[in-house]
């Protein structure tokens, strides 16, 4: 099992006015491939900053971050962009799909910024990604014609399409009702079962229960880093939900 993320003594400080705010203060941990980690913490605990650093959107003030063996701290902005394009997949709380654009074109987006992929290959990969999120019947639907859950699944397909070493999800269920949230979690558990490394930022304890490991942050420091001994299955939870009268979301 290879190490995907290796973080040592990570510090991130912001200077606001004449005050220095320590968003992250001496954080160290590693993530192995195939892990499903949730990062928890109240707002202001530094979890967003940590996610930004993990996502190579921001550089640490101090400390080292190795992503899949690459030292991120010395890379230029353009090199970081290339790294994000090839190694990372993002899922956001508000989906961030392009408006009035088909599911297919949304999923294509990361591959358009990759020169090595031909347009035929691109389309094949997109359809495969959409199939893996069970949306093969919605390929040409525009983003505004899809439900919230479906939109988030398109976003997950977009995160999968470049075959990243790690998927970063930022409150990915935050805008969804609980049933749809469980469906998304089921999908994510499924992806993890197929070997995808997943880092999921959330403040909901019941979402964290689906992951294998939970890192809790407080005031920029790691409060706890625990292995979840009893991972609950989103599939079971879904089946035990009281039946609803409306037609279930496909």
């Amino acid at each position, binding site marked *: 099992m290879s190490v995907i993320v290796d973080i040592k003594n990570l510090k991130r400080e912001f200077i606001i006015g004449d005050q220095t705010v320590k968003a992250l203060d001496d954080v160290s941990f590693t993530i192995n491939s195939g892990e499903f980690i949730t990062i928890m913490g109240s707002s202001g605990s530094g979890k967003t900053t940590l996610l*930004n650093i993990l*996502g190579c*959107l*921001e550089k640490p003030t101090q400390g080292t971050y190795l992503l899949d063996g690459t030292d991120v701290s010395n890379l230029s*902005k*353009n090199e970081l*962009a*290339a790294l*994000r*394009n*090839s190694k990372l997949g*993002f899922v*956001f709380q508000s989906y*961030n799909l*392009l*408006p*009035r*654009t088909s599911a297919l*074109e949304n999923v294509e*987006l*990361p591959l*358009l*910024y*990759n*020169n090595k992929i031909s347009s035929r290959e691109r389309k094949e990969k997109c359809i495969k990604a959409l199939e893996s999120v069970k949306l093969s019947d919605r390929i040409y639907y525009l983003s505004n014609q899809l439900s919230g859950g479906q939109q988030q699944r398109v976003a997950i397909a*977009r995160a999968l399409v*470049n075959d990243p070493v790690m998927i970063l999800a930022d409150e990915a269920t935050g805008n969804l009702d609980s049933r749809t949230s469980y469906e998304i979690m089921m999908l994510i558990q499924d992806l993890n079962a197929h070997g995808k490394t997943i880092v999921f930022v959330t403040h909901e304890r019941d979402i964290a229960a689906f992951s294998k490991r939970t890192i809790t942050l407080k005031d920029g420091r790691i409060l706890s880093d625990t292995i979840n001994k009893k991972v609950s299955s989103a599939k079971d939870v879904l089946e035990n939900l009281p039946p609803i009268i409306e037609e279930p979301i496909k």
Partner: protein
Amino acid sequence: MKIANLLNIAWRAISRNKMRTFLTMLGIIIGVAAVIAMLAIGEGSKQSIERQITSMGSNMIMVRPTSNVEGGVRMDNSTIQSLDEEDIIALKKKPQYINAISPVVSMKGQVVNGTYNWSTTIQGVTPEFLFIRSWPLKDGVPFTNQNVKAASKVCLIGVTVMANLFPDGGDVIGKTIRFKKIPFKIIGILSKKGNNSFGQDQDDMILTPITTVQKRILATTYYQYIYASAIDKNSSDSASAEVERVLRKTHRLKETDENDFTVRTQTELANILTSTSSILTILLTVIAGISLVVGGIGIMNIMYVSVTERTKEIGLRMAIGARGIDILIQFLIEAILISMTGGIIGVIIGISATKLVTYFMHWPTLISQSSIFISFLVCFITGVFFGYYPALKASKLDPITALRFE
């Protein structure tokens, strides 16, 4: 980054907002169409003037006496008697740039054919006159140098004169008409030349041997004009200088004296007439060009709004691996696509508008390829120029801030 991919991205982005894209284009469309139409109308009128000038003759040079001051009195042009046979002989001696010379005397008067009469101009000329004015005969034969020597009472008539004196038609050649009670035998009919650029009917004219007018009607030895023709188009300035040099000599003018005649070339006349039209064309095109610039500002405005509105999209693109330069090029291509598409539609509308003007208002128009090419070039430059700043702003966004933008 593959340009094809960026083109693809930019195309998708602008086709997502069709109405807005079209409205943005509208400024460019109107600007380009106006430029094309204005240039076409301007070029057309210039060409038609040039055609009229060319119809006046072949590389013609006109000499006429000017008023000179005699004892403080500026004399009227018609009384000046400075051009005479001596000048013609001198000019014909060893011409370098001149291949034909004809003196002219003319007078107005009534010409009569039986019960019909018509007021026209009779011009006394030499046979070379027809060559100088590139004026072939429609019918009959021209008079000869022999006729000039003999002061024969023969004439060539213009089609307007013929129509008024012989309304019933029939064979005109050989008939006799009277001018100042002198009978003239018609030996030829001039082909139709139409109006000149001043609106005068050039066909309202009778040509006779110059000596006939000088001796039989006016009783004078002077000429009112001398017409000459330069050997080719390019030597018209040299020919004009030659005429001036020769005439100054025969008129015995001192270095300090002003010319007592003026030499005008056809080229000069053409320049004078087309310059007005040129100025008007430039003026109209500048106004049309301003509307193009306003259209460009419209693009800049919309691109600006678009960058702000799509901040989150830009953040997303950056998060999934777009570099700053990719974003810059994407927005630049969007602006260029809008302006170039607008340009193409503008050219089509401009050409159609021009055709309509020609069809309904019968204005002469000419669509030059260069005007189309320049329009495209200006569109491209407009797109780059007005798209660059918003695109730069987009590329400088920080992905984290952009993603969190609401």
